């Protein structure tokens, strides 16, 4: 697994029945412990400036697909720090060959942190104080599609 949150391995277009229907990428959890899916606060994905809302992104954890709505109430499925999640996005024709600038924000709650810190969590902007063991909210990477 790579140190970068957005992994270079796993970034590709998704083909269904010979049609390219979207693209996928992998992200790792930059926290020191795994989380239950309801702790996730997924944000917005930008690829070359094109915006994809959190509701448009499917998370695949341990081989199972989850929508944003499903994850909100799922406090039994656990995402481990050692296994990246696969994010799948529908986009007719997929992404073009070549470089793509990816920006993706997500964060997560922690029951042992003061409520004031929890209530102001925003996946699309950084925390007031950066704490390395919680990682950055907004991660960027430039990666190639073949």
């Amino acid at each position: 697994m790579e140190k970068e949150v957005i992994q270079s391995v796993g970034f590709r277009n998704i083909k269904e029945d010979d049609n390219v229907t979207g693209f996928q990428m992998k992200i790792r959890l930059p926290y020191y412990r795994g989380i239950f899916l309801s702790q996730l606060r997924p944000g917005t994905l930008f690829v070359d400036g094109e915006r994809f809302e959190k509701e448009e992104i499917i998370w695949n954890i341990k081989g199972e697909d989850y929508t944003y709505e499903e994850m909100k109430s799922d406090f039994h499925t656990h995402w481990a720090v050692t296994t990246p999640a696969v994010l799948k996005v529908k986009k007719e024709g997929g992404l073009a060959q070549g470089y793509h600038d990816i920006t993706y924000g997500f964060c997560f709650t922690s029951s042992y942190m003061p409520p004031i810190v929890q209530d102001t969590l925003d996946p699309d902007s950084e925390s007031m104080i950066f704490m390395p063991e919680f990682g950055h909210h907004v991660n960027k990477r430039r990666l190639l599609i073949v």
Partner: protein
Amino acid sequence: MYQYNRKGPKRGVALYSYSAEFGLTKTLEDCFEDVHDMGAHGIEILANTHIENYPYPTDEWVDKWFRLCDKYEVVPVEYGNWIDSHVLGCRDLTTEESYEMLARDIRLAHRLGFTVMRTKMPVISDLLEPVTNWREIIRMALPLAEKLGIQMCPEIHTPSNLKGKMVTDFVDFIKETGTKNFGLNIDFSVFRTEFGENDFKDPHFTPNRPEDIIPLLPYIYCCHAKFIHMSDEFEETTIPYKEVIQVLKDNNWDGYLLSEYEGADKYEAGYEVGQTLRKQHIMLKNYIGD
């Protein structure tokens, strides 16, 4: 299963210390080997981090766990778990649901050979006060913990004080219930006296003196040997370690000191926390005399 029969304070490592490296440049076995290199015999894991396929590991993984303990002469000392009552955004878990989460961890801790749990309570204020129903959740779990020989221990960590309300409430609960299955894990950050210019010092924090720990010793089932800065002469420069360990020895306290390093520098590229832990273990070995 490997056993380490030394009495008194014993050396161990909290694998939390490896959080910047685990899963990237270090496997679980690498962490075990590093602990073994230090001559330490105790380990603390974080359930949600170090157990593959948590909270439902396979029997194969559990077999591997015991093989690692035997191979590296390591005792499973403390199982770090969280009562994540705030796990849902829309509402808190009920007492029953929180208990179910805790009971699952008690069973798993037992399955992996642990006897102590670092049970992290969900908080409701900046002073890190636990949820108001913590007594009900713990009371519900006491029979199972007793049956499986588990001691649940919240960690007492800066800015909390050993003489403060949180500790008093926990001790009152232990006295009221007479339980041996709920106790304390004291993090040595409560003894920190020295702060550098750029170090954060919580305005609510007052350091404890080493002897403040004495009345609590009957309820302390392990300690977090927190350290902030080790000098090249192998001295911790911010916490009076020599005095703290002397108090533990003088009062015949028997248990593990689990090294925990949470300095942000461990996230820097190329940082090997094992080297920092070794510096502390040279000191601990000298003071403990093992």
